[in-house]
């Protein structure tokens, strides 16, 4: 090759830059780099010829060669960055997924809605200072009725038709499936001295024919508070607090006189309708009544306190009982209680 003293470096730079910036992919860019920046490229040839020049000329040309190389190197880097970005973008685009397709889910299980409601109610009362007491599902006549002031043959017994168990060694009707969680009141009082603040959740049984609002197997939560000086106002405040926790902070409650043998005074508790806010009208939830019956309550009957071994002259208390199914149905709008006992897994997965 010639060893011209003044090679046209500007032309080399123009051609090299054109080749580098014109490269349409990284392979072309590598080829252009080879052609214009390698030792064998025209620029490389010039550089290799520098040794043959006199010092002044070498210095001068060397400076210009370096400048040309720097220019081309910059063009190379800039183009490489562009092409790499484009390649990456294409790659990521190719990896795009439809994010609306379902993910890989761990198998889905669930807790029965009646358990969830019961736990929620229990937690409300734990917050109010109560503990949880549990009693057996099979009870004796004494716990289920007699200690609760339902004497044998008393008409109040017909309020709760019991399922009785056969045991030839015992009087007929002695063993019953508990008709309510109230025998838990007696057992809780027997288990510890006052002050006593407990809830008794559990499954109950009655000889009812199933319909939209009755099933023979259902769940209740009993509430019992006994201490010195407890008042009916304490009962009202406690139930108001519960109603607001469960049905919403704006709720009010109404107490109506009622009768349960184990309380006196007795009351039926209504909550202001949470659908219409107590306005009534054509509300489907309260049927225009403005109030919805949620539970029965009252001051523990002195005879019940005495039967459980407490002194009715010293302590007083209140009790309440609520149906878990009803609490669930009220808030969820479920119309037929039998849905809760069907154990249709497709339905359970929706609640």
């Amino acid at each position, binding site marked *: 090759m010639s060893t011209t003293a003044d090679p046209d470096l500007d032309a080399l730079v123009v051609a090299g830059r054109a080749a580098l910036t014109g490269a349409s992919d990284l392979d072309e860019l590598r080829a252009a780099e080879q052609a214009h920046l390698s030792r064998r490229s025209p620029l490389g040839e010039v550089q290799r010829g520098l040794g043959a020049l006199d010092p002044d000329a070498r210095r001068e040309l060397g400076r210009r060669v370096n400048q040309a190389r720097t220019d081309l190197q910059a063009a190379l880097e800039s183009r490489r960055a562009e092409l790499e970005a484009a390649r990456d973008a294409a790659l990521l685009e190719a990896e795009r997924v439809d994010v609306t397709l379902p993910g890989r889910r761990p198998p889905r299980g669930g807790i029965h809605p009646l358990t969830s409601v019961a736990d929620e109610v229990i937690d409300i009362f734990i917050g109010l200072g109560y503990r949880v007491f549990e009693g057996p599902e099979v009870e004796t006549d004494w716990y289920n009725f007699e200690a609760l002031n339902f004497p044998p043959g008393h008409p109040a017994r017909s309020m709760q038709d019991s399922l009785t168990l056969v045991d030839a060694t015992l009087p007929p009707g002695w063993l019953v499936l508990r008709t309510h969680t109230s025998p838990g009141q007696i057992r809780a009082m027997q288990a510890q001295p006052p*002050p006593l603040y407990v809830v008794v959740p559990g499954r109950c049984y009655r000889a009812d024919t199933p319909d939209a609002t009755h099933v023979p197997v259902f769940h209740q939560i009993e509430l019992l508070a006994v201490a010195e000086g*407890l*008042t*009916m106002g304490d009962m009202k405040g406690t139930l108001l607090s519960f109603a607001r926790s469960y049905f919403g902070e704006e709720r009010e409650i109404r107490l*109506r006189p009622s009768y349960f043998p184990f309380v006196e*005074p007795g009351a*039926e508790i209504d909550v202001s309708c949470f659908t219409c806010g107590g306005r009534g009208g054509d509300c489907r939830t309260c049927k225009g009544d403005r109030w919805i019956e949620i539970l029965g309550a009252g001051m523990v009957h002195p005879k019940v306190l005495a039967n459980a071994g407490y002194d009715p002259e010293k302590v007083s208390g209140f009790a309440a009982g609520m149906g878990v199914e009803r609490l669930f149905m009220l808030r969820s709008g479920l119309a037929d209680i039998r849905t809760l006992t069907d*154990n249709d897994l497709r339905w359970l997965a929706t609640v």
Partner: protein
Amino acid sequence: MRVPLSWLANHVEIDLPALTLADRLTDAGLEIEQVDQVGEDIAGVLTARVLAVAPHPSADRLALVRIEAGGDERSVVCGAHNYAQGDVVAWAAPGSKLPGGLKIGRKQVRGIWSEGMLASAKELAVFDDHSGILVLPPDTPVGADLVEAAGLRDAVLQIKTYPNRGDTMNVRGVARETALVLGKELVPLDLTVPESGPPASRLASVEVTDVEGCPVYIARVVEGVDAARPAPLWMARRLWLYGMRPLGAVVDVTNYLLLDQGQPLHAFDLDTIPGRRILVRRAADGEQVRTLDGRVRRMSSEDTLITAGEQALALAGIMGGEDTEVRPATRRVLIESAHFPPETVRRTMHRLGMSTEGGQRWAKGVDPAGAGPVCDQAAALMARLAGGTVASGRLEAGPGVPERERVRFDWARSSRRLGAPADLEFAATRLRDVGCKVAVAGPTELTAVPPSWRFDLEGWADLEEEVARRWGYGNLPATLPPATGGRLTREQRLRRQVREILAGMGVTEVITWPFTNQTALDRLGLPGDDPRRRALRVANPVSEETPELRTTLLPGLVELARRNLAKALPGVAVYELGAVFLPGQGEAAGRSPHDAGLPEEPALLGLVLAGQRPAGRFDEEAGEFGFEDAKGVVEGLLGTLGIDDVRFQAEEPMPFHPGRCAGVLLGGRPVGLLGQLHPRVAAACELPAASHAAELELVPLLEAVPAMRPAATPSPYPELSFDVAFLVPPAVAAADLEAVLREAGGDLLARLALFDAYQGAPLPPGHTNLAYRVALQAPDRTLTDDDARAVRDRMAEAAARQLQAVLRTAE
């Protein structure tokens, strides 16, 4: 109790709409469950006078009736004959509407045009008589709208009667509450008796020897009645609206007064009573009575009978006898109006399994003061409506009912309990309002004698409720008691955790009814002597097919799985946490006589996995549940709870596949089984072959959860890992080898993880290749290959010596 508003208005002035009254009564504690508007479904029916009756020319049984209803004469064909010229009847004119939506037109009957029809009481839903058409009282205006003329439009209050408020089971009792609520007076009763016959004592006699079962016996005699005569429309209508069938004036009068004032009455045909002598006495054991309903009742010496000396006539307060009941031919009636205490009537009804309108009222308590006045009213009303004359004087026997006892009432205590004003007069006024005789007994104390009709007022708490009720529960303050320390017990908390862990592993909680039968246990293949075959029986089961209480959760879960799979669900993964019932004198039964006979109720955890295991995603293949899924759920549960001391060992009991069942041991104690269901069981239960179950005792499981787990200090030195593989002979379980390797690994062993289990060629038959990754770590130094070699050698030696398992060396 159903009370027509028009009837209530006979006893107290009502000056507000039915619905408003219902709200007021409900607030005061007399719950009105519903208000029915009646008479709204009749339209266009008129009152008409019968002008002439002629036979239908072509049908013997039909009559051709000319009527007039304030306009032109009309002609109607009628099938009934219980009317005559001049009677006022109900004419359903063409275009009118009857209850049930029936529209009346003009039609031909056997060739003759009938303009509408003459309607029966039943067709009009006035009451249930369909023996003839409705004949109205002669003074009924003609040509008027029937609903108006006969007063058929009414509002019926459906009242919930509490078992302790027998006094609200009659119209006057409801009126008494209404009067209190509205601040009005009760309308006084008309107690005049038109006596014109001979002295009653010449006609009959009464005597009581069972003064406990019958402290008061009052009777009157009415002679010359026409017992075939029906009750007037107004009375029949009221009985019907309550829900009773009109039976004829004589009996209807007794029923009417029962409903009106709550005093059960009985009408005897006097001439059928031997010797016309009533003796109220105890029954002899085994004595028999044939009651009105035709049944023979066997009595006991606890029962009170109305007799004629020898011959029993009626069960006191419950039901009359067949022989002495009033019949159409009856001419002389003895009206019984007695007092029977609640306890004796309850006892007899309970023992005989009977419940009657009268008996229910006695059982809840009837006002003893009503016996005399109601007897007088009955005699007067019967004479008026059924004809006849009232014999002079009452027949009376029995010592009477003792005065009610005074109840001491500490208003200081009760006012505090209610948050009511402490003023003594506050309570006294309210108690006087309801009829108590009140006296001041001290600065804060009253005594009150409850009124004779209030059987529910017994103790101070009852008086407290009465004052609170009259005051209004709305006035009670709302306060909170000073309760503290609310929390769950450890077991209760862990039970919730179990539920959450299982839900997190894809298992759904279910709650099944605990009723089952032996056939369900047959399907599970349980042998005849299996202890779970001994179950408690329900005497009156919800379903005759499932009379027993469960001793295992599996039948319920298996049935639930079957039902869900039958609904085309591909797979089922469910658990239940619940009690089973093991009969016998368990621990619970021994505590006190009050606990006698109680079964044990251990809580179990049941699990069923059947059919397809859910795929994680739509494009993944869904496999079937396998043994390892059931075991995995149990292992996952125990592991998450932190229970360490668990072993599984092969077991073979039903209902499980003999080669795919594991017993679960906690600290060496068996707590349950898991495995694939035996193919025969799966087939019998209509489940797929891939059906698996587990049943574990919950309490020992939760007790095994460590309260606190020691936390080791992590070693700063690196782990040293290597793999070992063993050729394991048949009958050696993986768990056995693992135990030996752990033992041999000693303190340096940080982790031991199985990564391969292989059977088949080229291994000898029955042999298994088990490969583990071993990780060693020391707390104080970096381990070397020499350490690894030493552990490997120890493992090889121990496995060979104890299990004849051979370490396979790397090729």
